[in-house]
C-alpha cells in the first residue's frame, strides 16, 4: 500500500540584529526569562492595541527561506491576514499571518530535495497555553514563525524525518532559522486512493517519525479489517505514542480570514531581493548536478552528499587534498553507516575536518585498510581525537613488507593444521580463514592481497 506524506512545518526565524517579536519591540528570548516578562499591550492583546510594522529582518529572512526553497517571490503586494479562532493562546482572538484563503504567500511553488513546496509564509506565534493548569505565558506570543507547506511527495517516516532534518540543517546553517527553538509540524498522511488524515501537534523530529509510523499502521490495519477511512484531523499524543481523533472534515474550522486593516501592504523591492539573493546558498538540486558533472560522482552518491549541507561541505573540503572517489566512499558508505548505527546526526557530531582529511589521504595512498578506517570512525564519532597519533600508537599502517608478513603467515600455517588439510582437499574457504587469521594477528593492517599470495605460495 503506497503511502503519501505531506508536511506543514513551523520553524522559528533566527534574528541576529533585531531580536524582537514580529509586531512589537518585546524580546524573543522566551527560554531565558521567566513567564510573562517579555510582554506589552500588543502581544497580550490589550483593548486598543495596534501592531507595529512587521520586523523587517524577520520578513527578509522569510524571503531568504523562500529563495532557498526555490520558491517564486510575488511581485505584487503582500498583506497580513487575520486568522480568527477562539483559543486561550490567542490574546486578540486572531493570528496575524500571511497565509489564508485570499493571501499572497511570501514564496510559492518551490522544490527542496525532491519535495515540492506548495508555499511558505511568515506569521506570529501564539502564546504558550497549558490546558491542564489553564496557565498562559505570553512571552512566546508574537515571535516570528515561518511556515513551509509541502506537497504529499514523501513516502515513509524515515524519508520524512531525514528531509525535515536536512531542511533544518540547511536553513539554520545560513542563520535563517533558529533550530534550537524547535519545530512544530502538522503531518498529512494517507494511503494512496484513500482520504487524507491530518495529524496536529507533532513537535520534534523524532515525533514526526513516530507519529507517521503509528498513523500508517493504524490506517493499514483499518483497511485490512475492511473499514473505510475518512478525512479527519487527529492529534499526536507523544506520551502514549498514538494519534487521537479531533474532528471530521465537516467540522473543519472556519478561520474567517480578512486582510489586516491595521497594517499597510508590503512589496518586496528589487534591491531587497538582490541583496537577499546574495546570501542564499546553492540549492541541493544544483549541487547534486554539479557533483555529477564536475566530480563524475555516481548519481546516488551525489544525491546523498548534496542532500545534507554539512556533509557536502566536508566532502568538498576534503577533496581539495584527497582523492574524490575514496572520499565519497568514506563519507557515504562508512561515515553515514557508523552515524546511523549509533543513531547520531552529523550536525550534532564534533567532526574535525583536518582529521577526516588525513583519514581520506591515508586511504587514498593505501596506507591503511578500509577496515582500519571504519574502526577509527566508530570511535571518532563518539569523541574527537587525533587520527595520526592513533594510527601511530596502535601501529595500524598497512604492512606490505613481504618478509615480515611471511613470518606471520608461516606462524599461522603452523598453528592451523586442520585448515591446511581442508585447503588441500580443495576447500577455498579455508584460504579465507587463514588470511583472516593473519589479519587478526596484524590488527587488520596487513595488505590482504599480499597475504593471499604469500599463503598460496607457502602451501
Amino acid at each position, binding site marked *: 500500500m503506497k503511502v503519501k506524506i505531506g508536511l506543514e512545518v513551523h520553524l522559528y526565524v533566527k534574528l541576529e540584529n533585531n531580536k524582537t517579536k514580529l509586531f512589537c519591540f518585546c524580546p524573543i528570548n522566551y527560554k531565558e526569562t521567566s513567564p510573562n516578562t517579555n510582554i506589552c499591550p500588543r502581544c497580550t492583546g*490589550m483593548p*486598543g492595541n495596534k501592531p507595529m510594522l512587521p520586523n523587517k529582518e524577520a520578513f527578509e529572512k522569510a524571503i531568504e527561506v523562500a529563495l532557498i526553497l526555490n520558491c517564486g517571490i510575488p511581485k505584487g503586494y503582500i498583506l497580513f491576514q487575520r486568522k480568527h479562532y477562539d483559543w486561550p493562546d490567542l490574546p486578540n*482572538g486572531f493570528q496575524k499571518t500571511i497565509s489564508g484563503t485570499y493571501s499572497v504567500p511570501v514564496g510559492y511553488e518551490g522544490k527542496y530535495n525532491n519535495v515540492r513546496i506548495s508555499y511558505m509564509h511568515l506569521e506570529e506565534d501564539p502564546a504558550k497555553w497549558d490546558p491542564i493548569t489553564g496557565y498562559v505565558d505570553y512571552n512566546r506570543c508574537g515571535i516570528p514563525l515561518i511556515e513551509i507547506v509541502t506537497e504529499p511527495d514523501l513516502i515513509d517516516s524515515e524519508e520524512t524525518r531525514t528531509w525535515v532534518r536536512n531542511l533544518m540543517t540547511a536553513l539554520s546553517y545560513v542563520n535563517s532559522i533558529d533550530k534550537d527553538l524547535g519545530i512544530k509540524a502538522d503531518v498529512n498522511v494517507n494511503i494512496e486512493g484513500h482520504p487524507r488524515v491530518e495529524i496536529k501537534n507533532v513537535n520534534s523530529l523524532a515525533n514526526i517519525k513516530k507519529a507517521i509510523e503509528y498513523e500508517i499502521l493504524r490506517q493499514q490495519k483499518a483497511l485490512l479489517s475492511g473499514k473505510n477511512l475518512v478525512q479527519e484531523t487527529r492529534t499526536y499524543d507523544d506520551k502514549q505514542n498514538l494519534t487521537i481523533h479531533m474532528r471530521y472534515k465537516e467540522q473543519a474550522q472556519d478561520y*474567517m480570514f480578512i486582510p489586516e486593516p*491595521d497594517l499597510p501592504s508590503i512589496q518586496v523591492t528589487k534591491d531587497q531581493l538582490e541583496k537577499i539573493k546574495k546570501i542564499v546558498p546553492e540549492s541541493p538540486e544544483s549541487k547534486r548536478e554539479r557533483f555529477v558533472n564536475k566530480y563524475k560522482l555516481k548519481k546516488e552518491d551525489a544525491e546523498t552528499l548534496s542532500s545534507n549541507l554539512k556533509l557536502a561541505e566536508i566532502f568538498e573540503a576534503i577533496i581539495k587534498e584527497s582523492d574524490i572517489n575514496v572520499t565519497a566512499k568514506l563519507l557515504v558508505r562508512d561515515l553515514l553507516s557508523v552515524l546511523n548505527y549509533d543513531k547520531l546526526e552529523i550536525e550534532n557530531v564534533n567532526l574535525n575536518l583536518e582529521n577526516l582529511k588525513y583519514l581520506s589521504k591515508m586511504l587514498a595512498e593505501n596506507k591503511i585498510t578500509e577496515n582500519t578506517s571504519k574502526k577509527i570512525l566508530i570511535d571518532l564519532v563518539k569523541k574527537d581525537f587525533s587520527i595520526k597519533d592513533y594510527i601511530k600508537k596502535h601501529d595500524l599502517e598497512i604492512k606490505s613488507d613481504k618478509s615480515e608478513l611471511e613470518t606471520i603467515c608461516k606462524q599461522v600455517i603452523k598453528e592451523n593444521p586442520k585448515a591446511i588439510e581442508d585447503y588441500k582437499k580443495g576447500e577455498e574457504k579455508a584460504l579465507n580463514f587463514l588470511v583472516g587469521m593473519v589479519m587478526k594477528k596484524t590488527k587488520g593492517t596487513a595488505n590482504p592481497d599480499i597475504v593471499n599470495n604469500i599463503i598460496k605460495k607457502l602451501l
Partner: protein
Amino acid sequence: MIQEKLRLLQTGKLTAEQNIKSFIDKIKKEDKNINSFIEVNKNAVQEAKELDKKKKKGRLFGLAIAVKSNICVKGLLTSCGSKTLSNFYSPYDADVIKKIKQEDGIIIGMVNMDEFACGSTGENSFYGPTKNPVALDRVPGGSSSGSAASVAADFCDLSLGSDTGGSIRTPASHCGIIGIKPSYGRVSRYGLIDLSMSLDQIGVFSKEVYGSALLLNIIAGRSENDPITFDNEVEDYHIEIDKVSSDLTIGISKNFNDLCQDKRILGLINKKIDEFSKKYKYQKKEVDLEYVKLAVQTYYPLVYVEFFSSTRKFDGRKYGFKIEENCGEEVLRRILGGREISKAEHKGKYYRQALATKNLIKNDFDNAFKKVDFIISPVVPRLPNKTTKKITDPKEMYAYDAFTIPSNLAGNCAAVINIGKIENVPVGLQVICPSFKESLMFNILHKFEMLK
C-alpha cells in the same frame, strides 16, 4: 475665550488647580441631568496642583480635557460604554493621551458614548443615555455623545472623540459646537479601542475653532505605534487659522442635497454658503459625487466585518464578560452580521465588494477636489430626534450618517461648525477637505466663525 484662558494659565493669573476645580464643581452640580461623564478623574485636582509647581509650562497647560471612553487612559475606566469592559482600567496611555500629558493638559474624566461607538444618537450606553445640554428633549447625537455634551455644557475646555462614520460630526452638530474628523492616518490610533479599523480616526471637540486647531496640532503626526499614520508635516493649524486665502472655490453637490430629508436644513446651509461666498468672494461650483448614495451600504459591511474581528478579544477570559452575552442590541447586530459576512462560504465577496465601492467613493472625491478646494454639505439629514422617540428601524438609523460616512470611506478630513438653530435645535454645517488639508479646513472654519 480659550486663547484668553490659555494666556491667564500661562502667566499664572489662573492656576491649573482653579481651572480644574471649577469644572469639577460644575460637573458635580449639573452632570446629573446630562450624564456626560462615566468617570471623573479623582486625581485631576491633585494633578493640577503638581502642574502648578512646574516652571516650564506646556502648550495645553492646565486645560481640562474630557476623553471618550474608548481611548485608553492609564488608570481610568476605559469602558467603551459597555458592560463588557466595565472592569477595564487601562494599564497604558493611548498615544494621543501621552501627547496631551506631555503638553500639561489634564484628563478630567472619561465621557459617555454609544456602546463600542455603535450608534448615532448617544442612547446606546450601558451607563444610560447622554442628554443634549442645549436641547434637553433631543438626543445629543453619537457615538461621541459625552465628548460633545461635556464641551457644550462647559464641563471641560476640550474633548477627544472618535469618528468612524460621523461619530464626532453628528454630536457636534446636534450640540452646536466644533467637531473635527482628521484625515485617515493623521492621528495615531494606538490606544483607541476599535470599531472599524480601516475607518476609525481620533478627533477633537471645542467651542471655538482655535481650541480644536491647537489640540489637533498636538495629537497629530506619525507614530511608530500605528503603522497607518503618515509622515506628512503637521502644520501649525492654530497659528495659520486666520491666514488670508483668496481665490478658493466652494464645492456643492446635488448628490448630497438630494439625500437631505429636512429641507429647512438645506435652506439654512444654502443661506450660509451665499453669505460666505459673498463675504470672501469665493466661487461656487457644483461637483458630481455619484457614488455617495452607496456610502451607507458600503460602510456597514466594512464595519460589521472589522468590528466582529476586533471584538474577538472580548471572549470573557480576560475582561470578565463575554461581549455577545453582555452587549446591547446594536453591538450584537454588528457582531452577528460580521460573523455571517466573514464566513468562508461567501468567499469574502461582501467585504471585497464594499472595499471596491469604497474606492469608487474615494475617486469621486479625488476628482471633485481637482475642481474645488473644499466641499460644503449638511451634517445630518434631519433634526435630532426627540428622546421620547427612539429610532428602532436600523435602516432609518443608518441613514442618519449618509453625509458623514463618505469622508470616512474616502479618508479625507471633515469638520462641523454650528450655523444656527431650527426649532431651537442647533444645526451644523460640514466642511469637507482633501486628505491632509487640515490647515485649509481650520482656515475655512475660522472664516465661518467670523461670519457670526
